[in-house]
């Protein structure tokens, strides 16, 4: 019964990353300028810069703390056969080293962290290959040899695929809202960095499994999007996509659940493979708790009661309306009549 339409709307307005604020975009400009100025001479290839990440896909949310991230992609006009991936990442590292006190080569990127909390991830691509594909430079100096490689990756295709998912623009809006709700749920419910599904993994789940939930009034022709229903739909589907695998955990064999979800674009890597079985189990349990709360909220007649339940899942940014604000306004105070009642025959 309860839809909490207004509450979901307000929640979405609160968590949505509308546009990058000036501080972040100026940080990006500074980083890009520094790379251009300080790129070592051996990096004799030109490059294009593009904004990647969830903001570009229109699925960005505000972080819970101040841990904003800025994603910068660099498309180098070079072939993966001509340059070692770690060498390419080292060019960027050298250009940025000393910019803040915390510059690190991480497995998929070079990260510059600012004392204020936010960070910039710079990724390096080889974009001029004989096979026409784009490759991402992976690996870190002390990492495993097999991790130091060029990985096929199509961030621009991914951005387009996610941004243009679903032909109807209102359906697409519901898709984006559902992604944002689940990403915020993840930030609220998974406290540690480890064992947390990534934003892009959740985005891909919604991409593959959400059936848009809307209802058109036959009289007025007005379409209402039911986000609570949509969440119930997609969370149920995610849960039913877990498979039981027979594996050894702490010396004994047992069935453990595992979810697999693929990136929507080539080469469609599986996005949850780094999660351990124990982390998977926790993930599934949290999804089940979420589903139960969503169903309970839907069964509530009073939107205030429903919102209380939803707030426990989505965090303090989910608004709980004062009871009176959920009701229509009366034109005038009713004039109360007297009344007569009886249980005897009148």
């Amino acid at each position, binding site marked *: *019964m*309860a*839809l*909490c*339409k*207004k509450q979901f709307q307000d929640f979405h307005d609160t968590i949505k990353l509308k546009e990058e604020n000036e501080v972040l975009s100026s940080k990006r400009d500074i980083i890009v300028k520094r790379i251009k100025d300080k790129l070592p001479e051996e990096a004799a290839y030109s490059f294009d810069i593009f904004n990647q990440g969830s903001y570009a896909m229109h699925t960005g949310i505000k972080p819970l703390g101040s841990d904003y991230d800025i994603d910068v992609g660099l498309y180098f006009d070079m072939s993966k056969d001509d340059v070692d991936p770690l060498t390419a990442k080292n060019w960027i590292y050298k250009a940025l080293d000393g910019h803040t006190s915390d510059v690190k080569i991480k497995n998929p990127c070079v990260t510059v962290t600012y004392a204020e909390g936010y960070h910039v991830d710079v990724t390096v691509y080889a974009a001029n290959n004989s096979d026409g594909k784009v490759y991402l430079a992976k690996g870190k100096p002390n990492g495993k040899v097999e991790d130091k490689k060029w990985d096929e990756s199509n961030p621009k295709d991914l951005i387009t695929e996610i941004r243009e998912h679903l032909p109807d623009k209102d359906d697409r809006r519901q898709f984006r809202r559902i992604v944002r709700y689940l990403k915020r749920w993840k930030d609220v419910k998974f406290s540690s960095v480890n064992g947390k599904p990534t934003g892009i993994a959740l985005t891909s789940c919604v991409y593959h499994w959400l059936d848009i939930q809307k209802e058109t009034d036959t009289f007025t022709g007005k379409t209402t999007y039911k986000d609570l229903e949509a969440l119930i739909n997609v969370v149920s589907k995610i849960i039913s996509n877990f498979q039981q695998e027979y594996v050894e955990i702490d010396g004994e064999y047992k069935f453990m659940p595992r979810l697999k979800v693929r990136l929507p674009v080539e080469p469609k890597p599986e996005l949850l493979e780094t999660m351990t079985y124990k982390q998977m189990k926790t993930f599934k349990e949290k999804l089940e708790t979420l589903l139960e709360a969503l169903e309970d909220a839907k069964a509530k*007649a*009073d*939107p205030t009661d429903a919102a209380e339940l939803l707030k426990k899942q989505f965090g303090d940014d989910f608004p709980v309306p004062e*009871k*009176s*604000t*959920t*009701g*229509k*306004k*009366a*034109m*005038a*105070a*009713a*004039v*109360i*009549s*007297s*009344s*007569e*009642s*009886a*249980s*005897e*025959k*009148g």
Partner: protein
Amino acid sequence: MNIALFVQKKEGICINNQKELFILPNNRILYIRPEAIEKINHYRQIRWTDTEAGGILIGRVLMEDGNYIVDDVTEPMPTDKRSRTRFSRKQEGHQEYFNDVWKRENGRCFYLGEWHTHPESVPVPSSIDRKDWSRLLNLGYETGCLFFIILGIDELKVWYGTEDKIIELKRRN
């Protein structure tokens, strides 16, 4: 002591096992909040000496779906006349109570109907009840419909009245 236990048990049954959700012919919902139910339950005519009680229903019409919620009820006021089988509610006290709520909620509340008790297991509206309900419906309240709750000894039932008819509501499962 025994009676007190008995009373408690009865109340427990009502609050826990009956979801106070009723379905209207137009598929809208009436929800009676536990706070309101609790107030009404207090007047269940369990003892031989218990007299009929009643009051008005105050609540919301939801913006998102037009469903009805009874948030609060008034209780018998000093000028009301109560006997074993009759309840005569006056305007005094009930109007003031309603006005206070109306002010506090900035006009986002409505008079939604009436409640009263019957000293019978399963309540059946008397001819006096029905006649008075029709009279109230003819006064033309803003919501265009009214709800009438009767609390019997074992059961609470709700009738729904519009201009042309009064029907008993079914609970929503």
